[in-house]
């Protein structure tokens, strides 16, 4: 991992030195020529991006990759996944190693402005939490004064942690390990009293614990972590595609279009919105420089946003997360698609 991040940085340095300036449209052309979308994902975070026992990538972030590939190439399996640690992810995107980064990445001002990235719409609204061993008898984050806390470097998590303890005049000792497996192992071995990351990540890490019931997630959420896919700046066409694929998934849920009734809806629906979305009424695809069935293909492959959520992280999965703020705006959540028209 170490070597890899170093190589990624090196490759980026080399790429910056010789690469041609980005030309709008080049990413889409490259994806089409290659017949494959290159997607940067997590090294293995259950529910978000994790290879199953047969090596097929699964998860919410992975489904976003699949939806984009289906929209562009008509084939949700035409994706090559690059697992990236928090440290490697931005250089991998900047250097062109991946076309899109779909890896529980928080949208912040600094990342948006100084890393040369554009964030597409949020696919998961998250917040940072803490997990502790139950035997410690800790009830609240405010009991953690003096604790040793495991955290991954290069994350917003690491920064929020320092901010939070400073603001509350508490002390802590960080144990900062880049590799996800290693940092989890350190926590489970008792090197740390607490483990902190996005609360979705906590649920995921806890589900992989030797004994999940021995650990509890503290009630406090100390930050906002809007997670969404990111692309390179300088290619507006591709940015638009990623942006609108995400919106299409959400809009489909708003319209009640799902992977099962999709075909029927395209044939029979009289709702002009649905007709535009599914390409029964042409135009939208053309604006994006895609086929008219772009959204149809995406929804056919992975379902609408609600289906993606339920399948990967919902109450029936190991993570068991409620929709909460990730519900549709019409249900009091934050998921709100800009109109596809």
């Amino acid at each position: 991992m170490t070597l890899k991040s170093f190589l990624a940085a090196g490759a980026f340095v080399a790429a910056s030195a010789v690469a041609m300036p980005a030309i709008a449209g080049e990413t889409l052309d490259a994806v089409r020529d290659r017949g494959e979308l290159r997607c940067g994902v997590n090294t293995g975070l259950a529910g978000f991006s994790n290879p199953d026992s047969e090596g097929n990538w699964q998860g919410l972030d992975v489904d976003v990759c699949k939806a984009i590939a289906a929209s562009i190439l008509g084939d949700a399996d035409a994706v090559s996944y690059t697992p990236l640690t928090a440290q490697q992810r931005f250089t991998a995107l900047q250097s062109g190693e991946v076309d899109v980064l779909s890896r529980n990445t928080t949208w912040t001002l600094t990342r948006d402005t100084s890393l040369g990235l554009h964030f597409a719409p949020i696919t998961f609204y998250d917040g940072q939490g803490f997990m502790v061993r139950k035997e410690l008898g800790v009830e609240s984050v405010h009991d953690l004064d003096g604790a040793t806390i495991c955290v991954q470097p290069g994350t917003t998590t690491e920064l929020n942690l320092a901010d939070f303890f400073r603001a509350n005049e508490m002390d802590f000792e960080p144990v900062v390990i880049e590799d996800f497996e290693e940092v989890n192992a350190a926590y489970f071995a008792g090197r740390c009293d607490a483990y902190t990351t996005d609360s979705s990540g906590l649920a995921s890490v806890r589900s992989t614990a030797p004994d999940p019931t021995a650990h509890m997630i503290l009630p406090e959420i100390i930050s906002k972590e809007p997670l969404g896919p990111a692309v390179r700046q300088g290619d507006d066409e591709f940015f638009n595609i990623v942006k609108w694929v995400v919106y299409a998934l959400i809009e489909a849920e708003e319209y009640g279009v799902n992977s099962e009734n999709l075909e029927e809806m395209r044939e029979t629906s009289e709702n002009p919105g649905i007709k535009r979305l599914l390409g029964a009424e042409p135009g939208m695809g053309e604006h994006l420089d895609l086929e008219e069935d772009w959204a149809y293909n995406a929804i056919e492959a992975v379902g609408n946003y609600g289906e993606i959520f339920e399948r990967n992280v919902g109450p029936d999965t190991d993570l068991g997360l409620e929709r909460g703020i990730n519900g549709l705006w019409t249900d009091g959540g934050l998921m709100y698609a800009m109109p596809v028209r």
Partner: protein
Amino acid sequence: MTVPTGVETNRTGVAALWHDPQARSIIYQAVALGLVILAGWYLFSNTLQNLEERNISTGFGFLDRSAGFSISESLVSYEASDTYGRAFLVGLLNTLQVALLGIILATILGTIVGILRLSTNWLVAKLASAYVEILRNIPVLLQLFVWYGVITITLPSPRQAFEPMPGVFLSNRGFMIPAPVDDPVHGYMGIALLLAILLSLALRAWARRRQNRTGLQFPVFPCSLAMILALPIIAWMVGGAPVVFELPILEGFNFQGGITLSPEFGALLLGLTTYTSAFIAEIVRGGILGVDHGQTEAAASLGLRRVRVLRFIVLPQALRLIVPPTTSQYLNLTKNSSLAVAIGYPDLVSVGNTTLNQTGQAIEAVTIFMTVYLSFSLAISVFMNWYNSRIALVER
């Protein structure tokens, strides 16, 4: 006078220059240098242009900005509100600390194992070879993981810490020992130690002169050792023998007070030391074997004792063979210390990677890494070359 005839004399200006071998070689070199500079400039300006087009920040201005992340251990004071520049300094000092200690320990350990491998005792020699072969042939990164795992998994939690001696604790949070509470006497002890070292050096010079004059020997080493141990202790007793120690005490989650050796530092130091010592052991063994056996026999027939044969005949000659390859082991150890990231010791690369990621300034961070490691390596090389030339055989 006869005018020399020949083609050369008729050439003037550029042609003459071209046919002058010396001038020609200068021209070639100038052209080559020019091309290198041009290529460098092309890469540099193109990089800047590309970064700008991609809206990626450049420049070293970020070093003055607040870092915002915490670092677990530091030789100088550091808080999350300090700058990225200071964070780099913390990482650099941590790298220096582990590299320096690692080099000293690996040298001692390597020398011992190397000599043991030559032992006439079968078991000792075989154990030493097993040590060398095992450690040398397993990738050092794996060894670090093993050490780290051993420390964090096998040791108990702080609440159940081992206490081998009162005030000394061993747990998966590290190794805690009492710290002497600041006292003016410590300063005097330091002065006494310095004095003892100076006296030892003087004693050695005197003993050497006396031996040259009279042939009489003086036990310099035991005397120096006695002084170095005794003088600080005397200073301490004269100062009223203060025995105030700050004991590590379990408070809340962890031990407070005392001196802590973290598992990360411990695992890294252990891993680097043992790995490198295996290579040094081989170098030492090779160096000793490289000294012609006739030398030992000749020395023995002069009636020198074994230790003296080693000290005065074999080692000085072996060192010439040992020092250059050992230098490259020192360089390796220093560079391998960057594997610290894997087990969470905040060395230069670990802190730098975090900075790189938080600021996105890959090129700047990588430049800092390269500059620092290059300087370390050059410094080690210069020192070792100086040492090597000092111990080189002087032909008489």
